[in-house]
């Protein structure tokens, strides 16, 4: 039986895809699961896989073509099968298929059990209404697991996403099912918290931001960095790596800032997954350093560099840029003194890092020159109150001003 090769939604937000290059030619024999082409999505370069076996009879969208999700880009059929009727079929009538989010991960090593938020997606925004067919149970399970339904392939009638599809797509089982300790705790909203949420949303956009700025003395951090980088020829440690390490360590002491705002509840995470903003051509993306609180400075340095490289080459998979619990954005390299970042929902906080500059400051009644850096924290007021954010930022500042505090 003939199989249409469709442009699949290979990322949660993908609406169209560009065929970068076909890896198979017309007339080639292909089997189900084989990679047919490389497709550039809005976020990354992904592989388009064959959903049936046979001969790739026709390519309808050649290299370089950009087509909408759901369009037919090729036809796989038996060598002698009549595909005339398929060629005439109106591609706009095709239901957009849901790509299997887990598929691209299949060829990679299985996720380690200590990265429990691997399956979590960055957003719990309601799925594009009416487009994704899913059973009520599948919707509930996907929400519980922070999975974006659009990225799940449905096996029910008409592509309906059912329970088993969500279970397959989730890279790890539910924390409760896993036994021992849960990766997070859902806290029902108190009345005052509900009222705060309602009132603040009315005052400023969908997320009621407020901002806290502090200036950090970076002398000791700079000395420590110079010393560490002089030790051997491991990966060079950047100021940003030290900031990431300090933020991760501080978040373990301030769980109230390591949280997601979800509909009707706040999810406080016991693990820190740091979203790190990386500028890429035409935009930015936030790869996630999983379990940053458990990683050494050197591991963070190596991982952030590797993720940033792949981000710039658009080789990140959806799991690598979703599921963060807090963000760090650094524009110091552009000589920005300070700035306010926009929160990456459902996360509740972000720290914007300015440049490190020598400034005259008063120390012990003397004016001296010190290397100083400004941190500006954006807070979702529905989750984080002023004093809560301030206390957290104070911890970050103390850690950076006395790097040994990170270890202690």
């Amino acid at each position, binding site marked *: 039986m003939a199989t249409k090769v469709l442009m699949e939604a290979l990322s949660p937000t993908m609406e169209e895809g560009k065929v970068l290059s076909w890896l198979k030619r017309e007339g080639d024999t292909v089997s189900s699961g084989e990679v047919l082409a490389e497709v550039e999505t809005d976020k990354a370069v992904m592989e388009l896989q064959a959903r049936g076996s046979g001969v790739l009879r026709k390519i309808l969208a050649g290299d370089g073509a950009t087509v909408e999700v759901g369009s037919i880009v090729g036809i796989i059929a038996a060598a002698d099968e009549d595909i005339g009727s398929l060629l005439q079929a109106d591609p706009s009538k095709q239901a957009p298929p849901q790509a299997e989010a887990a598929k691209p991960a299949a060829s990679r090593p299985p996720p380690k059990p200590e990265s429990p938020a691997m399956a979590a997606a960055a957003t719990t925004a309601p799925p594009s209404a009416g487009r994704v067919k899913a059973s*009520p149970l599948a919707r*509930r399970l996907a929400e519980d697991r922070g999975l974006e339904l659009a990225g799940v392939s449905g096996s029910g009638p008409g592509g309906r996403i059912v329970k088993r599809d969500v279970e397959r797509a989730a890279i790890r089982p539910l924390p409760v099912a896993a036994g021992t300790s849960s990766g997070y705790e859902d806290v029902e909203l108190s009345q005052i918290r509900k009222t705060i949420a309602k009132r603040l949303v009315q005052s400023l956009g969908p997320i009621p931001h407020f901002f806290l700025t502090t200036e950090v003395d970076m002398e000791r951090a700079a000395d420590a960095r110079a010393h560490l980088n002089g030790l051997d020829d491991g990966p060079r440690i950047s100021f940003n790596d030290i900031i990431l390490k300090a933020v991760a360590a501080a978040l373990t002491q301030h769980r109230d800032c390591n949280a997601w705002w979800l509909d009707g509840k706040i999810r406080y995470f016991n693990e820190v997954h740091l979203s790190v903003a990386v500028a890429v051509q035409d935009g930015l993306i936030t790869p996630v350093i999983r379990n940053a609180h458990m990683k050494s400075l050197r591991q963070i340095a190596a991982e952030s560099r590797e993720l940033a490289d792949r981000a710039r080459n658009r080789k990140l998979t959806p799991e690598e840029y979703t599921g963060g619990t807090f963000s760090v954005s650094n524009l110091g390299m552009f000589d920005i003194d300070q700035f306010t970042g926009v929160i990456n929902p459902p996360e509740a906080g972000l720290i914007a890092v300015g440049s490190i500059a020598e400034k005259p400051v008063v120390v012990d009644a003397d004016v001296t020159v010190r290397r100083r850096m400004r941190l500006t924290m954006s807070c979702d007021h529905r989750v984080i109150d002023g004093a809560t954010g301030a206390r957290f930022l104070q911890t970050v500042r103390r850690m950076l001003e006395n790097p040994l505090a990170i270890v202690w």
Partner: protein
Amino acid sequence: MPVVTYRDALNQALREEMDRDPNVFLMGEEVGVYQGAYKVSRGLLEAFNERRVIDTPIAELGFAGIGVGAAMVGLRPVIEFMTWNFALLAVDQVVNSAAKMLYMSGGQIPIPIVFRGPGGAALQLAAQHSQALESWYAHVPGLKVVAPATPYDAKGLLKAAIRDDNPVVFLEGEMLYNAKGEVPDGDYTVPIGVADVKREGSDVTLICHSKTVTVAERAAERLAAELDVSAEVVDLRSIRPLDTETIVTSVQKTNRCVVVEEGWPFCGVGAQVVDELQRRAFDSLDAPVLRVTSADVPMPYNKKLERAAKPNPDRVIAAVKQVAYLD
């Protein structure tokens, strides 16, 4: 525990309740001298007397009305209909008198009456004598409707029905009278309005009552053996009041549901169950709830057509495959 038939379990219930309360009496066609068309009242005329076991003429509306009148003045009549098909002639007394009197008297006149007899199809009794009419009565506020599937439940529910101060429509089954099961000696009741999980399972809930309990149980056995599907069988026992809590709890566990009933599909008991589930278990459903009912036609006389028209394990299994996405 003694094993007795459904018929004898009902007989025990009548005998014990008539012993217990002198206001209880039995009235209907052939209940006395002939000892019951289905021998449910065997030995009762001898044990009591013709004032408490009363043979009536073939006049359902009349003796149902006498029963309602007797209940109005404080007796506890048990009215036997030879079948519920014949009771259609007495619906006015059941619906307009028995069900309404407490309400229309401002709570002054309870009607503690039981209307009982076999309902549903037997074998080749054709269109006019093969009808499961429980949804008719369940529609009416003021009536309780029960339909036990086992001898244990039959005895316990009939005793509860006789002691209840409301009119109770008690549906038996001609094909159930010979069913055997364990029934304890002596007094016990099964509460009206409480369903019973007849078999525990984890993958799909089969909701059934009366004769379809056997259909569901057979389907569940085959599902386990052939498809490794674990089906939970929930016997409603009471149609009204409906035990929504047990149904919802089961579906919250299994996420899938098939309702099996002998009635016709339109406005059937299963339609009410589905209504409850879509409101109270919406977020637990992984598939639309399906129903297996009798075909939407008058019952054919032809043996093969009759078999095809009734719910059977094959049709239940087909529905389960659909809700479990196994096709």
